[in-house]
């Protein structure tokens, strides 16, 4: 007699396995970013993984928790990777450390560690350095495939940024997209990074690590919003394709907004969450001060999660009304 209790069978799915799958699914987009932006991406990722793991261990020690189990769940690595993929390459180490402190120590452990954080840690870390050091973080180098056709090494505006600036200078979309910074579908390089994120995300869907609700509703809403404005004013509005394949859209749709800890609980709630992220993101991109508002959009919707959970709790079997 071992004191076992029903159920005696348990699935083989575990939190570390889930996190490891997320890491595997991030491989294509990491590789793509590396190809277009060079070794600076690697130094970023390595330093961030180091910082995040060290901070996680330190926080767990301070909180007197099991450090080994806390590191083995790989959640700090996922946060580090997401941070590394949203920050421009080859940032100074101290800036990465600040981002990691905000993500792991403040956004995660101050609230009680894994599973308790109301905000997405990676996005908190990213926004902290974006707001504090805009000169370093808002500017990306010109993407160059495998370093071959490198025009110049100086920083330039991202496609979303340059669209915004040039539209303000009364250029039309046709003129803008004809420039060398744009490729077949959207910004050069960025289109491939987004497609790689989409591929990894679809694999996660297939492995049932994430459900379709958040990415589906978010991408559809974003596409619809872009399409509505684009249909009326195609000259001064980027097309839905550019909207979906620019900035961190796909990464956010499949890897960031799907974070279960800071996201909505029910399926309906997830759909509302996705729609909200898309609308905020679209609004900020079109009318806001920052070229890509996706990180703000995710954090804004994180704040709405308790309310969404309250509204969208499914009706319990045998009850007429939803629980309140």
């Amino acid at each position, binding site marked *: *007699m*071992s*004191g*076992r*209790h*029903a*159920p*005696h*069978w*348990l*699935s*083989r*799915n*575990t*939190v570390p*396995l*889930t996190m490891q799958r997320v890491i595997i699914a991030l491989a294509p987009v990491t590789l793509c970013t590396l190809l277009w932006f060079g070794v600076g991406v690697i130094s970023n990722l390595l330093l961030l993984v180091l910082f995040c793991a060290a901070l996680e261990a330190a926080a767990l020690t301070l909180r007197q928790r*099991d450090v080994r*189990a806390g590191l083995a*769940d790989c*959640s700090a690595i996922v946060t580090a990777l997401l941070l590394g993929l949203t920050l421009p390459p080859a940032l100074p180490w101290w800036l990465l450390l600040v981002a990691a402190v905000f993500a792991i120590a403040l956004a995660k452990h101050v609230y009680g*560690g*894994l*599973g*308790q954080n109301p905000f997405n840690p990676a996005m908190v870390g990213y926004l902290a350095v974006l707001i504090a050091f805009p000169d370093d973080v808002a500017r990306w180098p010109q993407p160059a495939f495998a370093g071959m056709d490198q025009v110049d090494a100086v920083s330039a505006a991202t496609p979303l940024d340059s669209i915004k600036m040039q539209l303000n200078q009364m250029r039309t979309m046709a003129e803008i997209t004809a420039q060398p910074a744009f490729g077949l579908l959207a910004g050069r390089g960025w289109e491939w990074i987004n497609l790689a994120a989409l591929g990894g995300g679809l694999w996660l869907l297939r492995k049932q690590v994430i*459900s379709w609700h958040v990415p589906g509703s978010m991408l559809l809403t974003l596409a619809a919003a872009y399409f509505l404005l684009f249909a009326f004013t195609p000259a001064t509005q980027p097309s839905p394709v550019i909207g979906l394949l620019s900035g961190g859209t796909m990464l956010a749709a499949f890897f960031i907004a799907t974070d*279960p*800890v800071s*996201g909505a*609980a*029910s*399926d309906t709630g997830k759909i509302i969450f996705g729609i909200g992220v898309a609308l905020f993101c679209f609004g900020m991109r079109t009318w806001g001060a920052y070229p890509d508002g996706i990180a703000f959009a995710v954090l804004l919707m994180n704040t709405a999660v308790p309310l969404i*959970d309250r509204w969208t*709790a*499914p*009706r*319990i*079997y*045998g*009850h007429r009304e939803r*629980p*309140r």
Partner: protein
Amino acid sequence: MRVPLSKIARPGWGIAFDTRGNSADLSALSLPERVCVPLQQHIGSAATPVVKPGDRVLTGQPLARAAANRLGAAVHAPLAGRVQAIARQPGPGRTGLAVSIESDGTDERWPGYTAHRDPLRLSTSALRSAVVQGGIVGLGGATFPAGVKLNRGSGVDTLILNGVECEPVISCDDALMRTDVDAMLLGAQIMLRILEADSCIVALKDGMADALQTVTTALQTLADDRFSIAILPPVYPAGGEAQLIELLTGREIPAGGLPWDSGAICQNVATAAAVAHLLRSGEPLISRIVTVTGAVVAPANFRVRIGTPISHLIAAAGGYTDTSSRQLIMGGPMMGIELPDDSLPVVKATNCIYVPTIDELPATAAELPCIRCGDCATACPAHLMPQLLLQAQATSDTERMQSLGLQDCIECGCCDYVCPSKIPLTRRFVAAKQELWDIAFEKRRAAKARERIAARTTRQQRQQQEQADQLAAQTHNVSDTDTAHQKLQELLQRTGADREDPS
């Protein structure tokens, strides 16, 4: 005649198990030398013994009758022999009074129950009282007294014969449908007559091809247009009563209500067969089919007399294949209970003896924090949100637990199964339910106590007043009334103080 057949789509909840390869063959089993029959094998109160140690009993003779005016069921002698003792003995999941009988090998039948050639001619009240007398309880595992559920006038229009058997390793219902289909259908007709219901759905699981064939053929011969067949996906817990009613009729058992409030009830296929055996052959519930599976040499189904030691079954199945580290589970891997050893008897609830192999049971993994992945909410057949319930439970927020539907948890274990953090959710919820029950009980008790305290205080005040009045009447003649009043006040104060000081 064509038998209506419907196929039910896979619901969003639950866990899909691959159940192919379950051996459903029925093997012969010798009579045990000794049986131990617990007096409580059902939901409700223990039965009251009607035999004494030393009595000779015959097969099918009542050993104990259902406790008067309580929910319960009678218990019968599974074989002929001498009653050795009536004493407290450990049974599966519960220790209580049990009757030990040593077999005399004759298996002589007790003649007290009449065998009817056509039970359907009997009056409904006669049929129902026979079901109650026969000690028949739900044989799916819940052991709810069948007679209570078969209640005319409860507004039930649909009887569901539950042969879904959604727990992965069990195949006793499959075996029953393949070997005893006529009794099962007669039992269903009897129940329909008692209920005055007009439709009966035989529910099977996808993959029970032989059983489906047998039932279809039997129904074609029977040509009763009240019957139809439904095939359910191999999803756990599609065979749970509430879930089955929802899947087959679209109705739900209202919260806090009882199954028949939905207008439909489920009876296990074996329960129906037991009713038919009782009325047609005069045999009360003294045996049932039990699946023996897992790490045994020859997994099989046996028709087992109630009270047979489990070791007898294991021996009939060829013994254990792995003797080093052995566990024994009564029931299936999702809701079964662990047994301490194989000396315990088979009871009416024993649908399966499952000996898990070591690699089938997960190593006890450390519990990780909940990451709110929501897999549990997707799996929950009651549409609860276990991840939020867990939060409420962790903060002892009883109100939130109640509003999140803790009482509607059916304890199926789906959330535990899918949880990537390996949190024992079901066990927590069961404990929390008990806690809620305690709190509600204490609240009721407190409200009543408050009333009684108020009544007592009023009474004491009245008594004091009466005493004071008497005293006043006695001292009325004293000229110095002020002194008397002062004395009275002192007296009142003293008595009051005496009463207030508990030491």
